[in-house]
């Protein structure tokens, strides 16, 4: 068996499904953010694999930008979690059932 870029794309699809399951099933806010990180990484891996298939370097530049946006996203998301924890003493998303406090 030779490894083709398509194998990496399928690996990425499996990782994406695991991340989606984590986001949909977990109730801890930190786990949900971790699931989002995993989904972003799976998308990055698929981008690099497709870039390899097409022989273009642009995909790797896009992945670099996605990494930067993911870093920004996680900083704001974790700050939100800290703010929520100060109000609720919990990061269980089931308890976030009010529109204002």
């Amino acid at each position, binding site marked *: 068996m030779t490894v083709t870029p398509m194998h990496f794309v399928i690996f990425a699809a499996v990782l994406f499904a695991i991340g989606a399951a984590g986001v949909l099933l977990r109730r801890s806010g*930190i786990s949900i953010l971790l699931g989002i990180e995993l989904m972003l990484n799976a998308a990055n891996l698929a981008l690099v694999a497709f870039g390899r298939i097409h022989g273009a370097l642009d995909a790797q530049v896009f992945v670099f930008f996605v990494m930067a946006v993911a870093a920004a996203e996680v900083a704001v998301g974790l700050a939100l979690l800290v703010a929520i924890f100060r109000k609720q003493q919990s990061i269980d998303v089931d308890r976030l059932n009010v529109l204002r406090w």
Partner: protein
Amino acid sequence: MVTVVFCLAVVVGIVSAVVALSHRSPVVNVLSLVVTLFCIAVSYALLGAEFLAAAQILIYAGAILVLFLFVVMLLNAPEEQPAKEPRPFQRAAGLLLALLAGAGGVAVLIGIQVAAPGVQVAGDARAIGRMLVGQYLFAFEFISVVLLAALVGALVLVKRKH
């Protein structure tokens, strides 16, 4: 050789991803995701993207997941308790949707026929750097504004009100 490394990366990556999103303890979740991200970095290296493999380890394992660990320890986050009101229907629907995303993705991707031949592109830092400050200069500058906005936003969100 490549096949062995790829299979190892896939098996370790998927197992640690499942652990990362199913274990109760938040610290185990974060540390297990580090292993998955290392496996993705190995995949980047196998695909010829050496710069991205290094950036993946530096940015994700080095910065983002350390930030996660800081927050887990700052909040002293407890282990996830069993739900007070279990919702079997919602759990089943969530699992089904995730499976659909994975299976649908695989089904669509297997059917793709790519005309272009697999050309080896140099994924070294020099080529990517040239593109970043050439063709993608505006996006490169704009991403710094996005990061600055995230920095200020995070500070405002965690600031204690007096």
